[in-house]
């Protein structure tokens, strides 16, 4: 902590307003990273307590989670492959949050992106270097189009995007439920699509063999590009400036002549496109076909990833990989120690609680700092 305190930009400034109230203004930077890391630490401690409570040794538990996620190249690849859709949905949620919107419609956008990718993969037949870009573009477009609906409803009729988003999740769910068995049925099973042909899959031979046959796929690289691109848009462009103004204070944006409605719809579209890419990364990358009757949990997990990543693109990248590690390690832990894999989900849930209530952690840090100063 002490070297952080020396950098003025990373400190918290207590400014006084005319009202005499103290307002805390958080300036983004290392302080937020510390809070997120502490949230993780507390989550892990809580997880240890859960394991102790069911009579298991937490040290072996964590050892096997870690080795399950990182033991060899294949497992590392799987961790990254699990993280890939989370990076996209996390970015989607973070982008929406930064622009004042709550994109709980990510699962629906992800389903539509996945459905579009699956449909393209099973209908067209192009050489791979053309096929993959077409599929990725298709997934982005369908996610974006799906997100226009809540954006438009919000802009035009002030319908809250959470309400329309949840409704659209189920609409997408049932559309998939109808279309996959009707048009893209697997050879034997009614509940899933046919297998994605190799030239349409984001899993490519050289990458799989590099990681000893893991699920890792090109989606990861697309995700990293997306992280860099979204960070650039948010911080460095006119578009990001407008979107954030509308998100922070739509009255002031309106006053300055920034079109509030246009920016709400645009923001939802970009968030939708990111979730659409998550669909491609999951259904034609991680998986090899699309199942019906499953609402993809990655859509909701994106919100948690964004929260832990402090709604910043690079934070999302780190948080998604961490969640990917827990998810891919929990099976191994279960196999080796009989600790139920749900413990990992409980740890994730606890971490989310701590990062959602990060104000507690900040108070604690303040109190510690004050005590340290008092002792001097």
């Amino acid at each position, binding site marked *: 902590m002490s070297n952080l305190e020396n950098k*003025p*930009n990373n*400190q918290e*400034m*207590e*400014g*006084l*307003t*005319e*009202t*005499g*109230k*103290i*307002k805390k*203004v958080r*300036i983004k930077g290392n302080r937020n990273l510390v809070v997120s890391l502490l949230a993780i630490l507390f989550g892990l401690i809580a997880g240890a307590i859960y394991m102790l409570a069911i009579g298991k040794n937490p040290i072996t538990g964590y050892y096997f989670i870690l080795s399950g996620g990182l033991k060899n190249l294949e497992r590392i690849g799987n961790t990254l492959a699990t993280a890939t859709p989370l990076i996209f949905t996390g970015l989607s949620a973070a982008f929406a949050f930064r622009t004042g919107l709550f994109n709980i419609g990510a699962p629906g956008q992800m389903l539509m992106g996945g459905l579009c990718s699956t449909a393209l993969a099973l209908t067209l037949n192009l050489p791979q270097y053309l096929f993959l870009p077409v599929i990725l573009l298709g997934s982005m477009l369908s996610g974006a189009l799906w997100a226009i609906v809540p954006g438009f409803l919000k802009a035009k009729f002030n319908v809250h995007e959470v309400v329309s988003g949840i409704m659209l999740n189920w609409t997408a769910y049932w559309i998939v439920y109808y279309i996959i068995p009707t048009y893209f049925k697997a050879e034997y099973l009614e509940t899933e699509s046919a297998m994605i042909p190799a030239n349409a899959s984001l899993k490519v031979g050289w990458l799989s063999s590099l990681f000893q046959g893991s699920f890792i796929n090109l989606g990861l690289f697309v995700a990293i590009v997306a992280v860099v691109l979204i960070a650039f848009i948010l911080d*460095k*462009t*006119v*578009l990001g*400036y*407008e979107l*954030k*103004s509308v998100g*922070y*204070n739509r*009255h*002031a*944006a*309106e*006053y*300055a*002549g*920034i*079109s509030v409605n246009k920016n709400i719809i645009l923001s939802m579209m970009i968030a939708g496109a990111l979730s659409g890419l998550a669909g491609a990364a999951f259904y034609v990358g991680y998986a090899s076909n699309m199942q019906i009757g499953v609402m993809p949990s990655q859509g909701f997990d994106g919100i948690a990833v964004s929260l832990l990543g402090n709604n910043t693109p690079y934070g999302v990248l780190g948080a998604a990989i961490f969640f990917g590690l827990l998810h891919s390690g929990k099976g191994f832990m279960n196999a080796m120690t009989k600790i139920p894999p749900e413990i990992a989900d409980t740890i994730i849930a606890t971490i989310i609680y701590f990062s959602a209530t990060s104000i507690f952690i900040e108070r604690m840090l303040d109190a510690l700092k*004050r005590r340290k100063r008092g002792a001097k």
Partner: protein
Amino acid sequence: MEYVVEMQNIRKAFPGIVANDNITFNLKKGEIHALLGENGAGKSTLMSILFGLIQPDSGVIKIRGKEVKISNPNVANDLGIGMVHQHFKLVHNFTITENIILGLEPKKAKLFVDIKSAAQRIKEVSEKYGLNVDPYAKIEDISVGMQQRVEILKMLYRNAEILIFDEPTAVLTPQEITELMKIMKNLVSEGKSIILITHKLKEIKAVADRCTVIRRGKYIGTVNVASTDEAEMARMMVGREISFKVDKKPQEKGDVILSVENLNVLSNKKVLGLKNFSLSVHRGEILGVAGVEGNGQAELVEAITGLRRVESGKIFLNGTDITNLPIKKRIRSGIAHIPEDRQKRGLVLDYSIEDNMVLEIYDTPPYSKNGILNPAAIRKHAEKIIESFDVRSGKGPEAIARSLSGGNQQKAIIGREIELDPDILIAVQPTRGLDVGSIEYIHKRLVEQRDAGKAVLLVSLELDEIMNLSDRIAIVNNGELIGIVNASETDENEIGLMMAGLRKGERA
């Protein structure tokens, strides 16, 4: 004479700024002691220290002669220190009694809140100090002045002996201000001691016994109010001579810049807030709009700036019809707007000052090119405004707008709008909440706009300001233009009657 509060050599630094630098402040028992200083001089910091909201870096606080450490507001309460905040902290759908007892509810049979006995006690206290409140009235149904009296009662109910009033008159009407001063005098005569934070010299002159002045975090001095005049206190506060009169060159009236013709505009209540309104503003003039709040001023301003739709009628800027132009185009064609509500409209509070300073021009060169922002140009622009409008903050252009004091936020907005170099500047309540030094400066800049052949449409509720600055004054009542008078040929009395809706000639 004994001191109830002694604050000695208080120092408090925030990153980038020393808010209190070795300040000493002593409050005698039974006096009203004014704490005077410009926006951001450190008054609020000093009082927040006394009230336990923040901790000083060094210095000693003694209450009734005993050294204390006030680590939080509860300690302050226990020491008999109470504070009336500028923005009230009341639950709107609770009754006055419920609000006052919140946090220390008297219990009946250990289970039920004993509203009755509390209300009885509130009634007694209220009568003792002439506060005149109904314990069972709901906050949402009572006036702002009475809400403030509830805040006062809250302190008295908690047996506070030392009362801090933080800019108490900012939200009150003139009648309510007179009422409040009477109450403050009552309180002192009952043995309470009062600290009055303000930058309004008139009020200090009217009620205070002594006055301590701080400037830029430093202690300047303490004076007896009776033997000091306003100009002297103003000089202590600002550090130079202040003129209360605005210097104006004789007017050189030019062509019409802005004209509105037969404008009808709906108010928020969906009735006509502006009725068949016509007005024109010329180059080289300041046109003041006088009227009681809510008589069509907001509708007029929002119709001109494009924030509100026009039902019928036309608006022309330099001869071009702008009635249906989008807001951005209006800004580009020469309209600037200092909005009434600086925090709602004027600033993105979570943006830094530098980002706020380009709110209308971020998408033009040199601030951006091909959709990419140019941070260096933005920084330079912000530094220019901060420098020339004396916007004080802990970290200059990087400071988050929310962290600035209200007065500095206002100065930043005014600087931004004047920097747009508009043909017409629409200034709504431009000096609300500012200290005399800043007011003088803002007035000077508004007059400069006029002298440069631009126009200013000044909407203000302060009649003094309108009379001082304007060349012509338009008086509105109930959405209608009652009349336009030349500032040099009128007086407060005439304008006051017109504000009440009486047209010239209707008066017998």
